């Protein structure tokens, strides 16, 4: 009768040991294998090229404008990217995560922040400031 109670309690240290072993293996293998293929700068350059080309042809501040007119997929850009355009008169246009504007300024301090490119160009006759950024990571799992 005592044995039943004793074993029910003694299984907890066993589970705890398994947890410790699992955590150790997970941390060790993540440190060794958990490298990422850094791609945010490349992706940001791609986005900047597309936006720069599109700014020369389209009016981003028109009410009918949509980034699909630049060949971009809005759903894909919205989630983990930023496309921000500010005209000389202060008018702004953006698609994506606006917080990335703050992250961009701090990306050299924290690698988890979005990687961005800033550039100036003209759209129509107006001078525009552009910020494009990406913080897209690969999704791992049951995909």
């Amino acid at each position, binding site marked *: *009768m005592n*044995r*039943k109670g004793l*074993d*029910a309690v003694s*299984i907890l240290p*066993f*589970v705890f040991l*398994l947890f410790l*072993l*699992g955590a150790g*293996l*997970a941390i060790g*293998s993540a440190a060794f*294998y958990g*490298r*990422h*293929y850094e*791609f945010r700068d*490349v*992706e940001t350059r*791609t*986005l900047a090229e*597309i936006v720069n080309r599109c700014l020369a042809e389209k009016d981003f501040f028109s009410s009918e404008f949509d980034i*699909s007119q630049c*060949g*971009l*997929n809005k*759903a*894909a*850009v919205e*989630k*983990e*990217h930023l496309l921000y355009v500010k005209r000389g008169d202060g008018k702004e246009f953006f698609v994506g995560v606006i917080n990335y504007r703050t992250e961009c300024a701090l990306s050299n301090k924290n690698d988890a922040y979005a990687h961005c490119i800033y550039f100036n160009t003209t759209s129509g006759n107006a001078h525009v400031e552009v910020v494009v950024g990406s913080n*897209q990571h*690969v*999704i*791992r*799992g*049951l*995909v």
Partner: protein
Amino acid sequence: MEKKGASTVLNEEIMYYIFLGIFLAGMIVALSGLRNNAVLWEEVYAKELARIIDHSQSGTEVKLDVTRGVAIALNNGRALNEAFVFDNIQNKVIVHLRSSGGSSFNYLTNKTIVDWHTERNSGGIDKDQLIFTVR
């Protein structure tokens, strides 16, 4: 009474084995993805394919050497036709090189990928090619 006691001890032993089994199964699944660097290669292929798609003009036929990826996928028990998949609805490249699970990455442009397939060409050196058309 003795029989009942023996059964309780047996049940407790089984519980230990069940916990151990769950733990080992979890570790095997987690570590199998790391074999052959499959997880890293999934990420490399997913991101580079997204870049190729974003930079391709409509109508471009792409032929990409995926010999390394195919070798890893087949070694992990994956079928050839499920290693590289394109989701045109969600704009995703999906790569399965591990025995279970995979990696996906969004491409940014409004492109549709058609006629994708992987060809195995055996010769002096195996060159497996992923072939698809960007529309």
